């Protein structure tokens, strides 16, 4: 089981790298560096010059992640007895295939906003799945036991975390729409910038509330406090990165080409956003694991905890 968990972590890390590679394509305006898909100019290994380096590099990383996902699925079917984990593995494969096809559509349809946004959003969802698989196969998940029931009359923490998660996901969609609505040499639409700022405020409130609640109710439980604190720290970093990304992006249309400060900071903002999302996923999953709301949830928790194949 340890091997499976490590492999799931590897796939999750590779997915994170893939998100960074995809963000680099967008920031370099390299999505249409070739009219071709899935090959680049009819070649598997074209000359990686100009923006083709970023676009074809992204495709190569994506192919690697696809292969790793297939390998992970096989590994899961060999080692894992929990049926729902197996199903999640199948779902991961379906998601990565769909993501590849969406990537192809973005090229063939010349980057229409809805398709590009869907591609960026599915990337985050796929990352969510791979991280979830890493969580579900971890020792800490399997060995975790339910904590005491939450006080009656209080809002369950799991709902607070779910709210934060949904808010972050909506914010990621707005961010993806904003990012793909204008290339580096165009100004970003004001209404989308305002929407993204509003979304950031909503995330601060939702995640802040969830984190504060964790710290108040479960101070000594690192199983919950660690992801909660990490998510908050990442959120603070993300807010600064967002501000910096906005400043560099504001100047970008006057630049002769996409410049490294704008590219670096914007990509870091995308990557950090993904980390805030998955850290909140870890927190949410863990609250569902150790904070059963009812007898039935407690039963479910028992069922999901102990079935190990090794």
């Amino acid at each position, binding site marked *: 089981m340890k091997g499976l968990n490590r492999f799931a972590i590897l796939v999750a890390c590779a997915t994170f790298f893939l998100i960074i590679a995809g963000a680099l394509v967008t920031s370099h305006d390299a999505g249409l560096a070739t009219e071709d898909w899935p090959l680049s100019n009819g070649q598997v290994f074209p000359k990686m*010059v100009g923006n083709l380096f970023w676009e074809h590099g992204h495709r190569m990383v994506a192919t690697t992640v696809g292969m790793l996902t297939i390998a992970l699925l096989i590994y899961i079917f060999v080692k894992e007895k929990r049926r729902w984990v197996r199903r999640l593995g199948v779902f991961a494969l379906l998601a990565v295939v769909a993501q590849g096809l969406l990537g192809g559509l973005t090229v063939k349809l010349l980057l229409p906003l809805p398709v590009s946004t869907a591609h960026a959003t599915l990337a985050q969802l796929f990352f969510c799945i791979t991280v979830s698989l890493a969580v579900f196969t971890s020792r800490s998940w399997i060995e975790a036991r339910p904590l005491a029931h939450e006080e009656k009359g209080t809002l369950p923490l799991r709902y607070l975390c779910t709210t934060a998660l949904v808010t972050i996901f909506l914010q990621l969609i707005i961010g993806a729409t904003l990012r793909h609505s204008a290339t580096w040499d165009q100004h970003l639409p004001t209404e989308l910038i305002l929407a993204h700022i*509003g979304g950031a405020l909503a995330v601060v409130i*939702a995640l802040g509330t969830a984190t504060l609640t964790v710290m108040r109710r479960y101070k000594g439980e690192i199983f919950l406090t660690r992801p909660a604190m990490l998510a908050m720290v990442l959120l603070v970093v993300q807010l600064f990165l967002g501000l910096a990304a906005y400043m560099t992006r504001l100047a970008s249309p006057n630049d002769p080409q996409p410049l490294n400060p704008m590219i670096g900071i914007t990509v870091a903002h995308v990557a950090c956003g993904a980390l805030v999302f998955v850290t909140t996923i870890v927190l949410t999953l863990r609250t569902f694991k150790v904070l059963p709301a009812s007898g039935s949830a407690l039963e479910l928790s028992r069922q999901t905890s102990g079935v190990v194949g090794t």
Partner: protein
Amino acid sequence: MNKQTKVWLVLSIALSLLALASACSTKTPDTNTPGDTATAAPYSGPTGTVSGVISYEGTPPAPKKIDTAADPVCGQKNPNLATDDTVVKDGKLANTFVYIKDGTVEGGKKVSEYAWSTPTTAVQLDQNGCHYVPHVLGVQVNQKITITNSDATQHNIHPTPKNNPEWNQTQPNGAAPIEKSFNRAEILIPVKCNQHPWMKAYIGVMRTPFFAVSSADGTFEIKGVPPGKYTVVAWREGGVNGTEKTLEVTVPASGAAKADFAFGGAATTSLTPSLKMMPAIEFPMMH
């Protein structure tokens, strides 16, 4: 805490939904382009010219050096590659697209009510030194554009029109010329290369042949213009959709009309006595 938490929860959900709704709002596309209506008969009769000089007032922005490290071929062939959005020599501005937007030919017919045949000769657009040459060009609707690649690297030509179909085509070094045309009038279509993001060109697609691009000394001449009263527009890149200046001119039979334009700084459009000035149309600058 409970009540407060609920309030915060409702607030955060409402905020994010509001943000999402705002993100999904649509924008009406800009349709302010020359018409495409078919015309009845060709014009036959005396013609004159519209000519002038495009000036740049104030200090033009210095060209910005382009980093070609991503493709060494570009740097080898064109080591001093720089932006060419504002090419000014002795106060005269090159690459300004000047065209007759509208007007009435002597006799009362609108210029758009005549048929203007499409030239059979193709207009050239070359990629040379990782740079589009020319930077600004004009064609008539359905006139062929021959695109060549003179570089030892590959390019991709990617026009991003609003009224014509968008396309993106890779052209490896040594590949045959690409022939394209646009079937609707449009001012002006940006052309980029997603391989080399600094490469930009602009194509003006006109229904009439009444357009010209200012040369290195800032001069332009539009030939074969029927006598009449016209609105002449000078367009240059910059801002969201470029910057335009407008003048009204009267072209006498077999004579010449002058239309001088000025851009930059606190430029005002100069007029000859035969010209009547119209308020300049300034598109919002984002700089």
